[in-house]
C-alpha cells in the first residue's frame, strides 16, 4: 500500500511541534522568528512531498499508513494514513500556517516566541486531525487543537473582549467534543457486540474496520446525530455559529484566518458522520441539505448587514460552510467533488481575505467601514488582491470558485432541485453582500485623513498574497488537476454510502415483486 516504510506522516506531525519547542526555547527573538519561519517552510515542503508520494489512482485506500499499538488493552492504536479526501488538507494547512507566520511577522507586540510556537503546534495537531485513522487518536488531536487556539485568541487578541471570546470558543468546542466521544464509544462497543467479543478486548477504534462493521438502524441515527452535533459546532453550522463572529472580532487576524481557513468540522462530517452511519446518512441527507441551506441563506443575509470586514468575513465563511454542506448532502460525485474543491477554495480565499483585513487593521487600527472608504485610491495593490479574492468568493469564472460552485450546484440540482436553487440564490446573495461592502469600504471618496496616508502593500505582504492568488487563478483555468486527486476516493466514498441501501432496496423490491 505505502510506497515507503518511512514514518512520513508522523514526521509531518512532529516536525512543527519540535520546531515549536525550539522556537519557544531560543532566547533571541529574531532567531526564534526565523526558526519558526524555517520550520513552516520545511513543513510546507514535507506536505508537498507527501502529496507527490500520494498515488491518486488508488486514492480510495489509505496510503503512507503507519500503525503502532498505543493502548493495547483497549485496542487503541496510533494509526495514520491519508486518502484522496484528506491528502489535500495537508498542504493547505501547512500553507496557511506559513502565511499566518509571515503575516504576523511584525504585528505581534509581545510574547513573540510563544506566539510563533503555538502557531506551529497548531499546524502539527491539525495535520494530526486530518491524518488520524483511529477514532481515539482523531479525538485526541481534535481536542489538542483547542489549547493553541485558546491562548492565541486570548493572549494576542486585538479586541477588548478577547478573553471572553477565547473562553466562548473553548466552551463551544468542549461542548462539541462530548457527543463526538459518545459516538466514538458507541461505535467501538457496537463493534465488540457485533463480533461477540468481551468488552475491553474487542473494542475497535480503527476506522477501516468500523466502516465494515454493520450497525443497527436506530443506532445509526443516534451515531449520525451525535457526530453531526459535534462537528456542527466546529464547522460551524447555524445555530452553533455564534462563537465565530465573536472570535473574528476579538482575535488577531492571522489566527482568525486559521480559524476560518482550517475546515476541521466539515472534514469530520465527510470522514466520520456520513460513512460511519451510511443508512441514516442516506435517509437523512435531506435534513443535512436543509441544514446547509439554512446556514447558507441565514449567514448570507446577516453578512449583508455587517459593517466590519472581519465580521463580514466570519459570516461569509459560515455561509460558505452551508454551500459545502449542500454539496455533501447531494450525495452525487459532482456535488461531493465540488464540496471538496470548495473546501480547498475557501481555505485559500477566506484566509487570504482575512489576512488582507489584518493588513488594513495593522495600518489604521480598524476594519470598520466607518473608518475606511476610498481605500482603492491609496492602496491600489491591496485593492487588486482584495478584488481578486472577493471575486473568487462570489465564484466568478476564471477563479477557482467557479468550477467548484458549478459542481456543487450541478450535484445539488440533480439530487434535489430546491437545494440547487437555494445554492444559486446564495450565489446572488454573496455577490450582493460582498459588493456592497466593497463599495462602502474601498470605493467612493476618501473621508478619513488616516486613510489618505495609508501605505500600500510591502513586498513581504505581496509575496504572501501572490501564492493563493496564483493558485486561485490556476485552479480556475485547470480544475482537473485537483479533481483527479480525489476522484477515486470520492467514488469509493459514495459507493460505500449508497451500495448497502441499494442492496436493501433491491431486497425490498424483490419482496414486493417476487
Amino acid at each position, binding site marked *: 500500500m505505502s510506497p515507503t516504510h518511512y514514518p512520513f506522516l508522523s514526521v509531518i506531525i512532529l516536525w512543527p511541534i519540535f520546531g515549536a519547542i525550539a522556537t519557544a526555547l531560543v532566547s533571541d527573538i529574531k532567531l526564534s522568528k526565523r526558526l519558526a519561519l524555517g520550520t513552516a517552510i520545511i513543513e510546507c515542503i514535507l506536505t508537498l512531498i507527501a502529496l507527490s508520494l500520494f498515488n491518486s489512482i488508488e486514492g480510495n485506500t489509505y496510503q503512507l499508513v503507519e500503525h503502532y499499538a498505543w493502548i493495547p488493552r483497549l485496542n487503541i492504536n496510533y494509526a495514520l494514513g491519508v486518502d484522496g479526501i484528506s491528502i489535500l488538507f495537508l498542504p493547505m494547512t501547512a500553507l496557511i500556517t506559513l502565511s499566518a507566520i509571515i503575516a504576523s511577522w511584525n504585528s505581534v507586540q509581545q510574547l513573540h516566541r510563544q506566539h510563533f510556537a503555538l502557531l506551529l503546534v497548531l499546524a502539527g495537531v491539525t495535520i494530526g486531525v486530518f491524518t488520524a485513522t483511529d477514532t481515539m487518536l482523531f479525538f485526541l488531536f481534535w481536542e489538542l487543537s483547542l489549547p493553541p487556539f485558546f491562548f492565541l485568541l486570548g493572549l494576542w487578541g486585538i479586541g*477588548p*473582549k478577547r*478573553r*471572553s471570546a477565547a*473562553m*466562548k470558543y473553548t*466552551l463551544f468546542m468542549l461542548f462539541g467534543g462530548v457527543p463526538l466521544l459518545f459516538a466514538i464509544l458507541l461505535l467501538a462497543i457496537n463493534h465488540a457486540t457485533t463480533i461477540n467479543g468481551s468488552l475491553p478486548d474487542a473494542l475497535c477504534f480503527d476506522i477501516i474496520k468500523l466502516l465494515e462493521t454493520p450497525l443497527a438502524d436506530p443506532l445509526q441515527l443516534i451515531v449520525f446525530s451525535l457526530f453531526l452535533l459535534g462537528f456542527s459546532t466546529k464547522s460551524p453550522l447555524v*445555530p*452553533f455559529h*455564534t*462563537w465565530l463572529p*465573536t472570535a473574528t472580532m476579538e482575535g488577531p487576524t492571522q489566527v482568525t484566518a486559521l480559524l476560518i481557513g482550517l475546515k476541521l468540522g466539515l472534514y469530520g462530517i465527510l470522514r466520520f458522520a456520513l460513512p460511519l452511519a451510511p443508512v441514516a446518512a442516506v435517509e437523512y441527507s435531506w435534513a443535512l441539505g436543509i441544514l446547509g441551506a439554512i446556514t447558507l441563506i*441565514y449567514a448570507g*443575509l*446577516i453578512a*449583508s*448587514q*455587517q459593517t466590519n470586514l472581519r465580521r463580514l468575513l466570519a459570516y461569509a465563511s459560515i455561509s460558505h460552510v452551508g454551500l459545502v454542506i449542500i454539496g455533501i448532502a447531494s450525495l*452525487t*460525485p*459532482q456535488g461531493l*467533488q*465540488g464540496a471538496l474543491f470548495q473546501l480547498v477554495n475557501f481555505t485559500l480565499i477566506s484566509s487570504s481575505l482575512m489576512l488582507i483585513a489584518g493588513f488594513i487593521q495593522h495600518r489604521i487600527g480598524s476594519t470598520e467601514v466607518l473608518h475606511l472608504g476610498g481605500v482603492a*485610491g491609496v492602496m*491600489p*495593490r491591496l485593492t*487588486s488582491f482584495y478584488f481578486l479574492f472577493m*471575486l473568487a468568493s462570489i465564484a*466568478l*469564472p*476564471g477563479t477557482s470558485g*467557479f*468550477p467548484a460552485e*458549478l*459542481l456543487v*450546484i*450541478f450535484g445539488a*440540482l*440533480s439530487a434535489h432541485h430546491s437545494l*440547487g*436553487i437555494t445554492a*444559486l440564490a446564495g*450565489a*446572488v446573495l454573496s*455577490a*450582493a453582500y460582498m*459588493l*456592497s461592502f466593497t*463599495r462602502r469600504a474601498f*470605493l*467612493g*471618496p*476618501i473621508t478619513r485623513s488616516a486613510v489618505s496616508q495609508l501605505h500600500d502593500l510591502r513586498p513581504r505582504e505581496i509575496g504572501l498574497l501572490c501564492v493563493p492568488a496564483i493558485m486561485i487563478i490556476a485552479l480556475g483555468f*485547470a*480544475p*482537473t488537476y485537483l*479533481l*483527479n486527486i480525489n*476522484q477515486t476516493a470520492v*467514488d469509493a466514498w459514495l459507493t460505500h454510502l449508497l451500495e448497502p441501501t441499494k442492496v436493501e432496496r433491491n431486497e425490498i423490491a424483490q419482496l414486493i415483486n417476487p
Partner: protein
Amino acid sequence: MDSLVVLIPLLPFIAAFLIASGLLSGYIEGENSEATTATIANWSINMSCLLALTLLVTDLMHKSTGSLNLGSWLTSDNLNIEINFITHSINIILAALFSLILSIVMRFSVNYMHREIGFHRFFAILSLFAAAMLFLVLSGNAIGTFFGWEIAGLCSYLLILYVYQRPVATVNATRVFVTNRLGDIGFILGISLSLAWTSNANWLDLPTYATELTTSEATAIALCFSLAAFTKSAQVPFTPWLSRAMEGPTPSSTAFYGSVMISAGVYLVYMLEPLFEKSPFAMGVLIVIGAITAIHSYWVGLTQTDIKSSLAYATSGQLGLMFVECGLGYWSLAIWHLCAHAIVRCYGFLSAPSLMHKVKDNPIKPINPNISQLQWAYTASIQRFWLDQLADWMLVRPIKRLAHDLSYFDDHVLDQLMGIPTPTINTISSLAEFEEKLLGAHLEQTKNPFTNGSGIAGKITSGFASVMHWFEDRFILRGIGKDALNMGRKLGRTANKFELLVLRPRYLVLFVLTTLLLAF
C-alpha cells in the same frame, strides 16, 4: 488553420494581463507610458480582428473544419466539460464584427482618454472585455459562453466604476452587477439542466439533443436561458440597469451597452434555436417580453433629454424587436438585425461626444407637446414606468429588512441562547473604549429599536412591538437568564460538593467495587 481561433481571445487577454501587471508593478504609469499601453492594446485587438477576418474568409470559402477541441476543462465522474471553439457561420461572423468594432473603439479611446487619470486601467479592462466577448461568441459550449458572459459583466462593473471616487457611480455599478447576477441564475440553471438531461452542453450537439428532450424539458431549459438573455440585453423588467450603466466613459458605453455586450442576449437565444423551436411557450415569452420592451423603451425614449440615455433606450428597444423576430421564428432576420444594429449604434455612440460639442449652445429641444399634454403617460415616461422603484419595493427592501431582523435575532437572541461567557471584569477594558467614552459614547446603553414603522398603523404596530419586546427583553429573557445563572451556580456548587464527596478515598473505593461487582 482553425487552431488560430485560440489566439483571437488570447491576444487581448495577454494585452490586458501585460497592462495590468505593468500598472500594478509601477512600470506603466502616467502620461509617458500612454503610448506603450495604447500600442499593446491596439496591436492585440487589431491582430485578433485580422485573424477573425482570415478565419471568416476561410469559412466562406468552405475550407474550415468548423470546430476545434482543446481537450477537457473539468471532469467529474460522468460530467465532462471541454474547451472547444466554433469557427463556423454566425460565430466567426460575430467574432469578426465585434473585433472590428472593438478595434475601432480602442483606436478612438486613445485620443478620447488622453491624459485621463485612469488611462491605463481603462485599456486593461477594455482589452479584457474584448477577450471575454470574443471567447463568448467563439466558445463551442455553454460553459465557455458563460465564462465570457461573466467576465464581460465584470468588465462592465469595473468600467462603471471608472470614476470610483463618485458615490453615485459606485452605487450604480453594484446595482448593475447584482441585477446581472440574477440573470446568471438562469444561465447556470440552464447549463445544469441541460447537462443533467442531455449530459452535454456543446452548441454543435444541441440540434441532435434537442430532439431527445420532451417539450416540457425543452421549455424549462429555454426559459432559464431566456432569463439570462433578458437580463443581459436589458429587457423588461431588467431595463433600468442600462441607464445606470451609462456612468462609464463614452467609448466603453459604445462597446458595452451600444453594440457588443448588450447583443449577447440575442446571440444566446439564437444559439438555442433548436430548443426554442421545440417549445411554443418559450417562443411566446420571447415575443411578449420583446414587444413590451420595445414599447416601453420607445415610450421612455420620447422624454429623454440627454444623448446617452436616449441612445440606451433606443438600443434596448431595438433588442426587444430582435427578440420578437426570434420569437416569430425569423432567426436569420434577427441575427442580421443584430449585426446591422451593432454597426449603426457604434457610430451613434462614438459620434455622440462631437455631436454634443456641436450643439453645445443650442437650447434643448422641448418634448413633443402632444405627449407632454398626456399627463399620465408623460409622468410614466419620465419615471421610466417606475421599474426601478418597483424592484426596490418588491425585492431589495424586503430582503434588507429580513437581513436586518435576522441580524438582530442573531446578535440578541441566538447569541444569548447559545451562551456568552460573562466577562470577569465588567468595566471598560481598553484604552480605545475609555477614549470613546470620554467623547460621549454611551457604552453601557446599547439601545436598539426593534421595529421602525411609518403611518398610524405602522406606529401602533411598532409601539406594540416595542412594548412586547421590552417585556420579553426585561422579564423573560433576562429573568430566565438570571434565574438560570443562579440555578446553574447552585447546581455547580452541589456538583462540586458531590465531587468532593465522591473523591474521598472511601467513596472512591466503594464506587470501584460497585462497578466491579456490576461488571462480573
